[in-house]
């Protein structure tokens, strides 16, 4: 079979592809987001009612619109026993991991926003529409990931993490300032995706609650899918490893002083 025939056999029109993407987005809404919301709910229940030593501040409930819409309202009145649970000064345990994760997601969303700004300003040269589409979709997904992690954090009575990883952010800014085309910008994004995936994968070994593991496990493969397509864009093997390495995982110390 020639290369051309192979392509013909896999032919699909742009209209079909758009419809397919819309269907899969619906699957995301029907299946994936509710499952995530359930895991977050279970996680914050454990934190809220003292299983891990946290106290819910009255009225605090999960943040952003998408996940919040999936979460049932919880009573804000605490029993005396619950009210006696000591509130730590900052998130620890699984919630410390959530803080690190949220900061990485904030950084990723901001970086893709910078990419889109650079495209609009013509700083990356001629950029095909598919690249802008990629950056737009991935930015939205990272924002949803940040929202998910922050739902667990705010559900336990802490303020959400709205800033990027303070250690990586200046490195990314320095590198991105030198990006002049799609490839160089994609390489920076790939580093971020690899870092996020490795960090979540590493966290799975240390997270305590099954619900928090489920959150990490449902996001890590999506970051790796972003990385696969970025590898394609750059011209590398899209799946370079049989076992994903942990070498780029970020430590909790990145956000320890938050």
């Amino acid at each position, binding site marked *: 079979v020639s*290369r051309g025939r192979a392509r013909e056999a*896999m032919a699909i029109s742009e209209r079909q592809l758009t419809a*397919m993407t819309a269907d899969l987005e619906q699957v995301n809404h029907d299946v994936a987001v509710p499952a995530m919301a359930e895991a977050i709910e279970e996680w914050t229940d454990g934190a809220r009612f003292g299983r891990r030593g946290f106290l819910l501040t009255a009225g605090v409930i999960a943040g952003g619109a998408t996940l919040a819409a999936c979460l049932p309202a919880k009573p804000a009145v605490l029993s005396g026993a619950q009210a006696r649970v000591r509130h730590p000064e900052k998130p620890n345990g699984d919630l410390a991991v959530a803080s690190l994760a949220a900061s990485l997601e904030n950084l990723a969303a901001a970086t893709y926003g910078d990419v889109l700004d650079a495209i609009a300003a013509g700083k990356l040269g001629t950029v095909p529409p598919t690249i802008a589409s990629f950056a737009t979709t991935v930015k939205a997904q990272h924002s949803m990931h940040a929202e998910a992690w922050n739902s667990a954090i705010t559900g336990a009575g802490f303020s959400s993490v709205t800033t990027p990883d303070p250690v990586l952010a200046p490195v990314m800014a320095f590198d991105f300032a030198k990006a002049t085309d799609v490839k160089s910008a994609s390489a920076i994004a790939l580093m971020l995706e690899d870092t996020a995936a490795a960090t979540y994968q590493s966290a799975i070994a240390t997270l305590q609650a099954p619900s928090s593991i489920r959150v990490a496990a449902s996001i890590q493969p999506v970051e790796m899918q972003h990385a696969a397509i970025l590898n394609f864009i750059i011209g590398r093997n*899209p799946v370079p490893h049989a076992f994903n390495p942990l070498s780029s995982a970020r430590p909790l110390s990145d956000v320890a002083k938050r």
Partner: protein
Amino acid sequence: MNGRRARRRDLSDTGTADELSATTTVTTSTTPTDIQMLQTAASLEALAVSAYQRALALPAIGGASADTVVRDFFGSTLQHHEQHLEAFNATVTGIGGKPQRSPDPALAAVVAEAVIGLASPASVVALALAIEQVLSETYVSNTSALSDADAKKLCASVMGVEAQHAAVLLAFQAVSSADPTGIDRGTPDGLPATVTSAGFPTAFYPTDKARPAGEGATS
């Protein structure tokens, strides 16, 4: 089944994805053990190895005139699954279980039948995608259920790789007459704008196609 789910079923060229999802599962009243989950993972890898071997034997996928991007991907992915099979069996042996080298008993017949009917690259890609989706979703599901630290680490290191395989296969389905590597050759203008987003259709990885944790356990 609601209309949204029904639309999702239409995405498969061959229907194999539906069949893999609809295959009857046997539920047990006991909690699956780490050994059972690892044996099931090994059985799914054995299934994938068999399917990719059959795919590469087809001229359209593994032949000299096949698309080099597709051929290289299938060859590399076969090696990944062979390594995963060995890793899951090494880990299950390490915690006192028996290795599992037979394909998942509930899915083997479905895949074997699908393989017989493979005629075009599109049908091969659809079958491979169905298998990768089942594997990745099963591992995502099992990661929070495993108790052994090494087993959990292994599952976590593999689940994203299977998801990447799925992403590439989704891109193959989406590129149609375009070439994903064309982006690298400076010829991306003909690509539909949504091609590069087709590889990651959900912000949170689903688990509705995960196989039962003990399905591939040895008796």
